[in-house]
């Protein structure tokens, strides 16, 4: 008796024993398909070139990001953003952006409405899509010079001290208040002689604009000139610097605020967050992630920093010098016992006070001089000594994260020994450090991504194993390191706890992690895995034989070429990776549907990708300097890849002669928009004949158009005839543009109709204009040089045509053995079962264990779907796809075998299907084992 088996579409199962360990319907090949519905295969949608080309021919998009629903494109050292309506043109940001290192893509995170980017020069920020790229973080206040102004009576009573700090800040486009690090504390003393006010001279750091404000904080009066005022500051003054201030890098303020008018407390006050919570700028990081409203920075380095203490001034002379160099721009500061001239690099060193006072005064002069010296463009200095510290503590820091390492030397040993550590005469032994620590994580304050105190950090695992990626889920931040996976829980207010999560799973493709369904999908040394709070689960076992080889040493570009993203709407994880050892970019995508638990592949070569806010996939093309956009109109037109424009030179029946067949292939669809048609033209003639106001009634009989190629001449004749027909107007012909383009002819027809409708002699005033367009579409069946044969005959315009590249999909089922691969059977016939199909040609091939070559059966059906099968005319085409089966015999040479391997192929653009599977009818055989 005949029996049947049904093979559904279960996705790739290439690794297990395909004669016993795979489910029915397992696939050994699944190219260019998705399995989004359980057991149903459908062709992938296409990717069309998006917007304009960029850079030069060799440029490729390195990363795509989304901010404020607009696409960001990174190539070379350029970041650009899409137009508000999409489809470009893209606008380049004025500031160039480079990735942190070659092969590592720029990472972006949005928080508080801002977009933060990793880059080779540190964390960058966008606060609006068409704004400027800025460095993230506030400005660190520099030195502050305070001076008692006894000329004005004021709050500063006699016999008092007061301390000051300066704070810079600004509000960004999203109304986030970005406060920097307060300045050093400077104390002013009013020893007697009456009340006074205080003059403050504030050094303005780089990066400050007129949008910034500065705030002056002041302590309470100490009550006695010998009593330190402490460090509990409150706001006494706020203003914006002028352009002149910024140019002079200095602003002078006179503090006259009465004691009772002191306002808000400084955030670093001990009773607030404390000085250790000063808002430092985010460190340089290779990855960033938002977790519990804090921005995390991983695999970091800081600015170059050096702590230096002045121990005494005894051995300093007027010829003593300090030289600071980053290797490129050295500058030298000279000590002088008489005066300070900061802008020319002259430091005042004090010798007249107590040793402590001398050190304090000299150290402050060193700081001011470094900050204000015009030849210094590399570092800033900060005075750290507070009320409870020994004087002379200086902190040197490079101005930017991307700056070079700097070192200090001095003129003599005596000078050098006045400092701790000792400043050498030559060499770079006293150099700054930028703490390149691969296992370090910094985190920002709660909901303040640009405020990263120096103490908000922790090291994760072994220092020898760097952090590869940090990825946040709802409850956990996962840290992927070279020695395993760690997890972080907690929040910035209550502290974070880091712990080892899995030391047996190592991320091997740093750009592969993607978040979907509150899980992380990533390419690990155990395979492609799902990581969640509950553990690591490898999901690539069915295709392990595909996955494992490409991770071997021979595939040298694997880790940099591989990238992944998650398509939430369709529950797909796309992993683009290499195919061959020599591949420098990803040449295929492994697509895993997390709901149907099925793998398929896309043999396409891309450099980067993401899912945009419009729920479309965007990809960086690997072969051209374009990016691509997923077609997603939910129509048959989604099933084609790129489109190209060329000119139609001539045509005869279904053979077209076109200018260029580059990128054109059999199966592609040729299309052309139709603006004006014989029907549109002739209906006007017929209406004229019936119009009692028009003398002639032979318009249709004399001017009727059969083909579009006649329209221009007949339109001219119509206009001339109207001019001569005794109507009100005689400008019918002269009003036309006489263009021969389809749009031009349509425009001319509408001009004539427009005049007709206002002509008082003519009775009718509703002659129809041509407004709607239709599209001719047909499939290319052969190409010979520039002669293209298409499936359907159309009346084409000799004008530009567009061709749309097909997507070739292929499904090969694992061997079908009907439960027993050891006995011979006769597989008689098969039914391809479609939930719906709108396709005219599909191929089904078979091979068996007896005959390994494929033998193909081509189905040519009369599909009802969705295009191209109706005669061309005025009505839009269309139709719906329908469920149906395609039945065929198994080719005779393949019928008798132990197992059968069916292969389904589809190679035409603008067609789609929902393939449920195929049934095989067979009879178990006993004696007849071959043909």
């Amino acid at each position, binding site marked *: *008796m*005949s029996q049947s088996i049904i093979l559904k579409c279960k996705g790739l199962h290439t690794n297990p024993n395909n004669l016993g360990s795979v489910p029915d319907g397992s696939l050994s090949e699944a190219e260019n398909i998705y399995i989004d519905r359980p057991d149903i295969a459908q062709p992938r949608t296409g990717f069309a070139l998006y917007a304009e080309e960029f850079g030069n021919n060799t440029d490729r998009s390195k990363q795509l990001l989304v901010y404020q629903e607009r696409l960001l494109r990174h190539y070379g050292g350029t970041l650009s953003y899409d137009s508000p309506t999409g489809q470009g043109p893209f606008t380049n940001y004025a500031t160039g952006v480079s990735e942190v290192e070659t092969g590592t893509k720029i990472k972006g995170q949005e928080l508080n409405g801002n977009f933060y980017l990793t880059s080779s020069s540190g964390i960058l920020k966008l606060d609006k899509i068409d704004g400027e790229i800025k460095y993230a973080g506030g400005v660190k206040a520099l030195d502050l010079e305070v001076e008692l102004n006894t000329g004005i009576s004021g709050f500063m009573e006699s016999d008092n001290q007061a301390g000051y700090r300066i704070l810079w800040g600004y509000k960004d486009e999203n109304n986030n208040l970005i406060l920097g690090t307060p300045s050093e504390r400077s104390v002013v003393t009013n020893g007697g002689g009456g009340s006074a006010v205080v003059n403050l001279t504030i050094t303005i750091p780089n990066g400050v604009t007129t949008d910034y404000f500065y705030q002056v904080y002041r302590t309470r009066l100490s009550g006695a000139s010998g009593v330190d005022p402490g460090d509990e500051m409150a706001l006494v003054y706020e203003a914006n610097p002028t352009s002149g201030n910024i140019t002079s890098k200095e602003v002078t303020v006179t503090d006259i605020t009465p004691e009772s008018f002191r306002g808000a407390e400084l955030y670093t006050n001990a009773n607030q967050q404390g000085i250790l919570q000063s808002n430092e700028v985010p460190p340089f990081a290779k990855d960033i992630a938002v977790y519990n409203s804090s921005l995390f920075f991983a695999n970091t380095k800081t600015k170059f920093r050096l702590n230096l203490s002045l121990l005494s001034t005894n051995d300093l002379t007027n010829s003593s010098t300090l030289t600071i160099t980053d290797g490129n721009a050295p500058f030298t500061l000279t000590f002088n016992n008489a005066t300070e001239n900061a802008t020319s690099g002259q430091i005042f060193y004090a010798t007249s006070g107590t040793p402590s006072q001398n050190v304090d005064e000299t150290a402050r002069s060193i700081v001011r001089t470094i900050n204000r010296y015009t030849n210094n463009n590399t570092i800033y200095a900060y005075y750290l000594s507070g009320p409870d510290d020994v004087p002379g503590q200086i902190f040197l820091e490079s101005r930017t994260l991307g700056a070079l390492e700097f070192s200090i030397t001095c003129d003599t040993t005596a000078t050098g020994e006045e400092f701790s550590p000792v400043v050498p005469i030559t060499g770079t032994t006293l150099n700054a450090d930028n703490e390149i620590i691969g296992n370090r994580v910094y985190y920002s304050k709660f909901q303040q991504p640009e405020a990263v105190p120096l103490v908000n950090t922790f090291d994760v695992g072994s220092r020898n194993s760097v952090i590869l990626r940090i990825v946040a889920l709802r409850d956990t931040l996962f840290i992927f390191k070279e020695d395993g996976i760690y997890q972080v829980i907690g929040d910035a207010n209550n502290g974070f706890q880091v712990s080892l999560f899995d030391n047996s799973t190592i991320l091997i493709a740093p750009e592969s992690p993607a978040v979907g369904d509150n899980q992380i999908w990533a390419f690990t040394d155990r395979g492609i895995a799902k990581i969640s709070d509950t553990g690591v689960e490898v999901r690539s076992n069915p295709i392990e034989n595909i996955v494992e080889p490409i991770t071997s040493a021979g595939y040298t570009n694997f880790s940099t070429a591989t990238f992944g993203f998650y398509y939430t709407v369709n529950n797909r994880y796309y992993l683009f990776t290499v195919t061959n050892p020599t591949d420098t970019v990803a040449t295929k995508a492994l697509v895993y549907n997390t709901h149907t638990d099925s793998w398929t592949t896309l043999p396409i070569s891309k450099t980067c990708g993401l899912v945009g806010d419009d729920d479309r996939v965007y990809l960086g093309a690997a072969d051209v300097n374009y990016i691509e956009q997923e077609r997603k109109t939910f129509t048959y037109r989604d099933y084609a890849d790129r489109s190209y424009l060329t000119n139609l030179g001539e045509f005869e029946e279904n053979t077209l002669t076109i200018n260029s067949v580059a990128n054109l292939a059999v199966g592609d669809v040729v299309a052309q928009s139709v603006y004006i048609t014989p029907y549109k033209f002739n209906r006007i003639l017929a209406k004229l004949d019936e119009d009692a106001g028009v003398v002639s009634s032979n318009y249709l009989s004399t001017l009727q158009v059969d083909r579009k190629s006649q329209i221009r001449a007949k339109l001219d004749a119509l206009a001339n005839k109207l001019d001569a027909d005794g109507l009100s107007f005689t400008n019918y012909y002269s009003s036309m543009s006489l263009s021969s383009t389809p749009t031009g002819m349509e425009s001319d027809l509408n001009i004539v109709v427009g005049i007709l409708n206002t002509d008082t002699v003519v009775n009718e005033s509703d002659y129809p204009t041509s407004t709607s367009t239709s599209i001719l579409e047909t499939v290319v069946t052969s190409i010979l040089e520039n002669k293209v044969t298409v499936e359907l005959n159309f009346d084409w315009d000799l004008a530009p045509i567009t061709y749309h590249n097909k997507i070739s999909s292929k499904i090969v089922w694992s061997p079908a053995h009907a439960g027993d691969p050891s006995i011979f059977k*006769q597989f*008689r*016939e098969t039914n391809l079962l479609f939930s719906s199909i709108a396709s005219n040609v599909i191929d089904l091939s078979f091979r068996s264990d007896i005959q390994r070559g494929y*033998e*193909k*059966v*081509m*189905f*040519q*059906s009369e599909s009802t779907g969705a295009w191209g099968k109706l005669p061309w005319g005025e009505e839009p085409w269309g139709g719906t796809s329908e469920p149906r089966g*395609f*039945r*065929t*015999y*198994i*080719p*005779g040479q393949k*019928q008798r075998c132990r197992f059968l391997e069916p292969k389904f192929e589809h190679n035409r653009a603008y067609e789609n299907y929902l393939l449920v599977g195929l049934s095989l009818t067979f*009879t178990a*055989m006993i004696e007849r084992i071959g043909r």
Partner: protein
Amino acid sequence: MAFTYTVTDLIASIKVRCLVPISQITFTTDDILRFANEEIELKMVPNILRVKEEFYVRNKSVTIESGVTEYEIPYRAIGSKLRNLFFKSGGNMFPATRLEPELVPYYEGSGNGANNTAFYLRGNDIVLINGTSAGQVVFSYYLKPNKMVQTTRVGIISSIDRVGDGTIGSVTVSNTTFPTNFTADSEVDFLQAKPNFGTYNFDVAITSVNPTTKQIFVLLSDIPTKLKVGDHIANAGECITPQVPSELQSMLAQTVACRLLEAMGDKDNLIMAEKKLAEMERNLFAVIDSRTEGTPQKINNIRGLLSSSKIGGRRYGGNKS
């Protein structure tokens, strides 16, 4: 509605009977035609001959040459056998007598011209006893049906030039594409397109062809008088209409359908199809037997002892019988 009986109709009928998928490569058109030709040869023709109603009978006269005693049975004779053999001499037909080869020595040497009426078979030849140069041998045999081929190989005659240049005439075919298998010096058959699907003339040598005008030139004398527009011209031995009575074509289709089902291992449907075929075979004889029901054939024992007077002294079996 006109009746059409080409292989296109036959194949369509076969495919419907066993539901051959529209798209398949297991059975090509040539495969199905091969099955059909085999079935005609092995099943249809024997059944038709069994009713002995003179289907396929055809005569061929061969002039007896002096000293030549062996004459080949026409190659188109079914089974290389003869329906009958006559000698024609002086306008008179003499039935021939087949001898057992063992009896030949007893008949040789009589020197009587009447001995021409005796022959025996040797291989595929007839051998005359004491043959002379006078007269003709008339072979009466069952003409093999032509093999069915694809329609593109056969011409549909759209006009006939029976005048030509006085020697050469032509037929013009209406095929969209002129069949490339028609070439000068190839041989063709002129075939009846409508029932009874007879063969008007066969093995006619083409003198030349003109693919542009779609003309095929042959000797005027080779153009059958019965040939008319719509008939077929095919390469020798080929046709596109099954040369069986039209009423049997559905049975032919059913027979081939059974072959396909058998080849596919579709036992369930094969059983059903064979039941239908058996029913058809039972009815076969009602259709083709007794071709002249109103004038039933009279049984005349021409070889009986008493029959010589009834055939005017020409004793069947010759003077030795």
